[in-house]
C-alpha cells in the first residue's frame, strides 16, 4: 500500500489509472445494472468480442496503409456500434434466432480481428493490452473521453429512467403505454457498446463482461431498486478497480485480472451471504411458528 501511495504521488500514469477506474465505474454501475436486470449479458458479450474486429482493422489500416489518425479505440467504437445495431435489429425482428445470431456476431467479430492481426506486420503489443487490459497505459485524453461518456450516459438515464425501467420490467406493457420500446432497446445497446469500449482499457475485452455484470449483480443482492443498484454497483466498481490497482502494484500483477478476481470473490460472498440470510430467516420463521402452536 505504501509503495502504491508513493507511486501515486510521483507518477502521473498511476493517477491516470486510478481516475480511469473511477470514471469507468460510473458507466459500469449504470449500464451494468441495465445489462443484469434486462438479462442481456450475452448480448453485451457479443458486442465486446466484436471489438477485436475494429481494433484489428484500425491497427491494420494504421500500419499497412499509413492511416496514422485512426486510433484503435475509434475502430473499436465503430465495431461495437455496428454490432449493437445488428443485434438490436435481430433481437427485435427475429427473436427465435437471437442467440444464434449473437453467437455468430461474437465469433465472426473475433475471427475478423484475428485475421487483421495476422495480416498486420510487427509486434501487436497494444492489442494485447486491449485483450487483457492495461489500465496503466490510460492517457489524459482517454480520461476526458471517459468523463464525457459518463456525462452523456447520466443525462440519458436521468431523462429516460422510467421508460427504460418499463422496458426492462415488462416490454409488452411498456408498448401498450406508448413507450418507444424498440428505440429504447437500441439506445440501451448503444450505451452498452460505448461502456464496453470504455472498460476495455481497464480490464480488456476478454474480461469486460465480468466487470459490467459482477458489481451490478452483487448490488442486486444488497438493494431493492434499480436506482439503488446503480449507486451501489458504481461504488463497488470504484472500490474494486482501486483495490485491483493497489493490490497488483507491488507484486507486479496484471491490474485487470486482479480486479476481476476480486469482483468474482465479492459476488460469490454476496450470493452466499444472501442465501445464509434467507436460511436464517426461514428457520427463525419456522421456530416462531412452532413456538406459537398450542
Amino acid at each position, binding site marked *: 500500500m505504501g509503495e502504491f501511495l508513493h507511486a501515486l504521488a510521483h507518477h502521473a500514469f498511476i493517477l491516470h489509472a486510478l481516475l480511469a477506474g473511477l470514471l469507468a465505474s460510473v458507466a459500469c454501475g449504470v449500464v451494468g445494472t441495465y445489462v443484469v436486470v434486462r438479462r442481456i449479458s450475452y448480448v453485451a458479450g457479443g458486442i465486446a468480442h466484436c471489438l477485436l474486429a475494429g481494433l484489428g482493422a484500425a491497427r491494420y489500416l494504421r500500419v499497412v496503409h499509413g492511416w496514422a489518425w485512426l486510433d484503435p479505440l475509434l475502430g473499436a467504437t465503430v465495431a461495437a456500434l455496428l454490432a449493437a445495431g445488428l443485434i438490436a435489429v435481430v433481437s427485435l425482428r427475429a427473436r427465435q434466432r437471437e442467440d444464434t445470431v449473437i453467437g455468430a456476431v461474437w465469433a465472426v467479430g473475433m475471427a475478423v480481428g484475428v485475421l487483421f492481426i495476422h495480416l498486420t506486420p510487427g509486434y501487436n503489443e497494444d492489442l494485447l493490452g486491449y485483450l487483457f487490459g492495461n489500465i496503466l497505459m490510460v492517457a489524459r485524453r482517454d480520461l476526458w473521453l471517459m468523463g464525457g461518456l459518463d456525462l452523456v450516459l447520466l443525462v440519458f438515464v436521468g431523462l429516460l429512467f422510467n421508460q427504460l425501467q418499463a422496458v426492462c*420490467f415488462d416490454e409488452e406493457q411498456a408498448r401498450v403505454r406508448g413507450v418507444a420500446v424498440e428505440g429504447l432497446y437500441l439506445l440501451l445497446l448503444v450505451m452498452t457498446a460505448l461502456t464496453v469500449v470504455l472498460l476495455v482499457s481497464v480490464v480488456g475485452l476478454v474480461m469486460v463482461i465480468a466487470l459490467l455484470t459482477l458489481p451490478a449483480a452483487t448490488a442486486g443482492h444488497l438493494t431493492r431498486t434499480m436506482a439503488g443498484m446503480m449507486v451501489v454497483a458504481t461504488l463497488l466498481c470504484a472500490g474494486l478497480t482501486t483495490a485491483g490497482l493497489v493490490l497488483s502494484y507491488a507484486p507486479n500483477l496484471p491490474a485487470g485480472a486482479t480486479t476481476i478476481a476480486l469482483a468474482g470473490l465479492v459476488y460469490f460472498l454476496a450470493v452466499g451471504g444472501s442465501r445464509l440470510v434467507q436460511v436464517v430467516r426461514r428457520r427463525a420463521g419456522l421456530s416462531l411458528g412452532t413456538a406459537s402452536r398450542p
Partner: protein
Amino acid sequence: MTATVAEPRVSVVELSGVTYAYEDGRPVLEDVRLELPAGCFVSLVGPNGGGKTTLLKLLLGLLTPSRGIVRVLGVAPREARRRVGYVPQHTRIDPHFPATVLEVVLLGRLGTGRHWGPFGRHDREAAMAALHEVRLDGFARRSFAALSGGERQRVLVARAIVCEPELLLLDEPVANLDQVVEEAFFAMLDELGHRMTILLVSHDLGFVKTIVDTVVCVNRRVVAHPTSAVDGHVISELYGGEVRLVHHEHQVS
C-alpha cells in the same frame, strides 16, 4: 358465426370477421365476430392454444389481424391503448425485479404526462389511490420481489388501473394463486367492475361464474353466452371432450 350479447349500450369491443394466423399460416382465430357492451364483465374461457391471449393482444394492438376489423372503445386498438389497462400473465413478469411497489405502479402512468424526467406529484397521488383500491395500503415502499404471488398480482392490477382505464384486460391473473387468495382477488375485481369494463382470461369458470355476466368461449372461433347459459354441454363442446363441471360453494363478498 356471430356472437352478440344484446344490450342497448355503446360497444367497447367490436370484432368483425377477424382472422389471425402466426408465421406458419395456421389460423389461431378464424372469422371472429364479437361485440361487447360498455360496463360488462366478461370471462374468456377455452383450451390452451385456443386463441384467448391472441385475442387480448389484438385488442391491445400488439398484433394486427390477418383479416377483419378490430375496434376498441370505438377506435383502432392502437388509438385506444391509453384508455386500456392490461395485466399480463404472471409468467411474463420477473418476480425478482428490483423495484418498490410504488415504482411498479407508477409505470402504468407512462404515456399520460410528459415523455421524460421523473414522475410528478399527481402521478404519485394516483398511484397511492390505485394501491388503496387494490387493498395494498402501506405497501408502497415495499420491495416488489418480497411480495407473495397474490400481492404481486394486485400490484399489477394497480399498475393497470392507475391510468383510469375504461377497459381492463387481464390474462390469467389467478393462474398461480391458491383458492383463498383467488377468492379475495375476484372480490376486488368485482368492485372494479362497477366502473369499468373487464375482460378476464381464466380457466376457473367455477369461480368466475359468480361475478361475470358474459362468458366468451374461445377455441379458434368465438361464441359469447350469458353466464347463466353456460353448462356442462357448452364446456364439453369448447374443450372437445368430457369435462367435469365443479360448483364452488362460496360467495364473493
